[in-house]
């Protein structure tokens, strides 16, 4: 905290344009980077407690939060579930974070997950007899491509016509849900003997294998954590590498900081925007595939379970950094899994978790608000992450 004063002084006479400083900061203020998110989560839990008091009475707060904590981390099964739920959140969170880095607000992760999960299922229920080493990667690739296509559309529209991605991605979400309904009712995909939209079961060779079955604990067959989690960590590292170690990643961030400057710097802004959305869509598509190939084993309407929207909150909480996204995803996974336990053990509804998540974004997006509450001096301003309607 003490060196913040000197930093502020230096900032008064910037030698380089501001966007260069933003794209490639020389000094990372780690304390501020960690303190605000921590206080944001803490404050959100406090406000959540107020809601519990309001609806269930003062005595319910500790039992409710106790159940939440136990449900999320109390034992191998809880941890396995938390990480299992965190996995698609990591993928979707990366999809949103990548967009933010390039100044794009990808609200379409939900739709991209839907299409990606669907294409993965289509491959997953076909090709009987294929060995798993070929079938599983093929199904995952199909999921990536499906999501990428659903990201490509808003990317092209944004880059070529200036149509704002916030509106186009939201509309594409709705369209994706309808497409899912339609495809799942076709004889090729629909489960036999069913009349509602639900797919056949994914073949064993295209399922994500469980990874905790070697543990010497009781009830090990209950531990559902699968290979998807390892894959998510690997993908997070790849995204980190692309963003911060590669030339194209620098271009992405430059476009995000100042598209005009990036253009004069000789960067291909149009193709950068399209590529970012394609990659983001692909990441979300992997998240959807993780659900259909791993957890659920099939596709049905609403299998994405609002993960794509939670992703917005956790991308903000994770400061659009892949590492931050992984940590935030685990936190959100804990909230979801713990929330279920809270609903079962106490009378507090799981929708409280949505309120807590919304409050987390409020506090993270408004650091000055947190500073005002906790009387912390100095630090960074609220950042303008998105752009208005005009290109």
């Amino acid at each position, binding site marked *: 905290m003490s060196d913040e004063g000197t930093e502020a002084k230096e900032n008064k006479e910037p030698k380089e344009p501001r966007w260069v400083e933003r794209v490639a900061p020389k000094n990372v203020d780690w304390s501020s980077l960690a303190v605000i998110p921590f206080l944001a989560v803490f404050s959100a839990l406090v406000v959540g407690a107020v809601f519990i008091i309001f609806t269930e009475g003062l005595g319910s707060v500790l039992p409710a939060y106790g159940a939440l904590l136990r449900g999320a981390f109390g034992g191998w099964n809880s941890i396995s579930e938390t990480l299992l739920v965190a996995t698609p959140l990591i993928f979707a969170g990366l999809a949103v974070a990548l967009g933010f880095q390039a100044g794009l607000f990808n609200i379409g992760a939900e739709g991209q997950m839907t299409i990606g999960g669907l294409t993965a299922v289509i491959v997953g229920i076909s090709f009987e007899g294929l060995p798993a080493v070929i079938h599983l990667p093929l199904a995952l690739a199909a999921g990536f491509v499906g999501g990428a296509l659903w990201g490509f559309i808003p990317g092209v*529209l944004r880059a*070529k*016509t200036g*149509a704002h991605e916030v509106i*186009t991605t939201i509309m594409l979400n*709705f369209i994706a849900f309808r497409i899912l309904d339609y495809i799942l009712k076709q004889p090729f995909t629909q489960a036999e003997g069913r009349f509602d939209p639900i797919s056949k079961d994914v073949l064993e060779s295209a399922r994500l294998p469980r990874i905790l079955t070697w543990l010497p604990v009781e009830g090990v067959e209950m531990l559902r954590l699968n290979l998807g989690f390892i894959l998510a960590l690997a993908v997070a590292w790849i995204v980190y590498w692309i963003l911060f170690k590669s030339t194209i990643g620098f271009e992405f961030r430059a476009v995000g900081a100042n598209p*005009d400057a990036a253009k004069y710097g000789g960067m291909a802004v149009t193709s950068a925007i399209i590529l970012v959305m394609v990659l983001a869509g692909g990441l979300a598509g992997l998240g959807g595939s993780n659900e259909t190939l791993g957890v659920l084993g099939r596709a049905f309407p609403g299998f994405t379970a609002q993960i794509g929207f939670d992703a917005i909150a956790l991308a903000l909480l994770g400061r659009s950094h892949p590492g931050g996204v992984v940590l935030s995803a685990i936190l959100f996974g804990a909230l979801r899994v713990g929330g279920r336990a809270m609903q079962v053990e106490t009378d507090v509804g799981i929708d*409280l978790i949505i309120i807590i998540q919304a409050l987390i974004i409020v506090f993270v997006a*408004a650091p000055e608000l947190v500073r005002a509450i906790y009387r912390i001096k100095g630090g960074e301003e609220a950042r303008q992450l998105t752009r208005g309607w005009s290109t």
Partner: protein
Amino acid sequence: MTAVAGTADFVRAPAEIRRARILGIVYLLLATVVFLFFAVGTEGDVTFRLGDQPGDLDFTVSAQVLATFTAVVFAFLGGIQLTKGFGAKTNVVLAIAIGLFAFSFLGWAAAGKSLSLIGMLGTTVALAAPIAFGALSGVMCERVGVINIGIEGMLLTGAFTGAVVGTVMSPLFGILGAAIAGGLMALALAVLAIKYRVDQIIAGVVINIFALGLTSFLSSQFLVENASGLNNPGVLGPIRIPLLAEIPVLGRILFDQNIFIYVMYLLVAGMTYGLFKTRWGLQSRAVGEHPKAADTLGINVFRRRYINVFLGGLIAGFGGAYFTLGSVGAFNENMTAGRGFIGLAAMIFGRWHPVGALGAALVFGFADSLQVKLGILDTGIPSEFLLSAPYLVTIIVVAGVVGKARPPAADGQPYIKE
């Protein structure tokens, strides 16, 4: 600095040319589609009924002739769009084109049958209402330079409050409560966007997530257990205005509706007058275009923004009550289903003008009612595709039009007083 800005404008120009070209090509493509699918091989006449009773005010036309006519008009429009363009009239032309396309589509779908057009137009107005309220709320906020993505959340909050207060007290109090609830949501947006200078689009998304969580939480905690005592407000019936309602065709659409529709018309008229003919409107627009200049002239930028965003919230909250008190009669989780976002698109399509916003909302409402109608007609088109139509229209509109319409210059930018 000026040189750079000038170059930036020059760089942007090709995007606009490309956009005009894309729209032109879309027209030509649609001309082909209309001709190949709706005209070729279609037989039979279609009767559009404009009166209450069959045979009252009918006009009959061959579906094939209608489709061929539409195809020719589209080809013509495409030609003009590709050569000299429609300039400021682009949106109006596009709206008419969408309507014409819908007609030929209906003609094809209902060939050999008759179709109550008056019923469809009534549904159009009803389905357009919440979209229009959302769009008007957006106009209110964005004219002072605050982007309001939170319309969806404000509609949802209004719908919830309308249902609960409407059941516990009376529907009229429900409307009032809904408006205030929307206004409070808007105040939260205003504080985040104006005081704490949070990215406005993110602040709006926060409002949406928060509203969804809050209404779902309260609904599952209270409304589900006690639906009759908390979630049973009933629907406000139409109020028939004597004499005016007797006018053929228009009478039924304009003067035999519920209170929401009348307020919608009044609001459009009032906002148009207010924004463009009064001191308040001039000051508001100045704040949205150039807050610094407005500040120099002694206008309190912050106060103007707070007040107008709050007013926008009142409008959205009121519009939200339409879902529960005006059409469905009870609150369901996430019942707004994206209408707030479509309202946002309607605002852009309507060029940030109240009349334009209403017109655009009517286009979306028509697309919505078309989908309802086609579902009944059983055309063999999967219902999932019909349900996607309003969303698809929104994308086309935003992609084809947004760059042409200029938003208020300071839209989305926080103001920092020096």
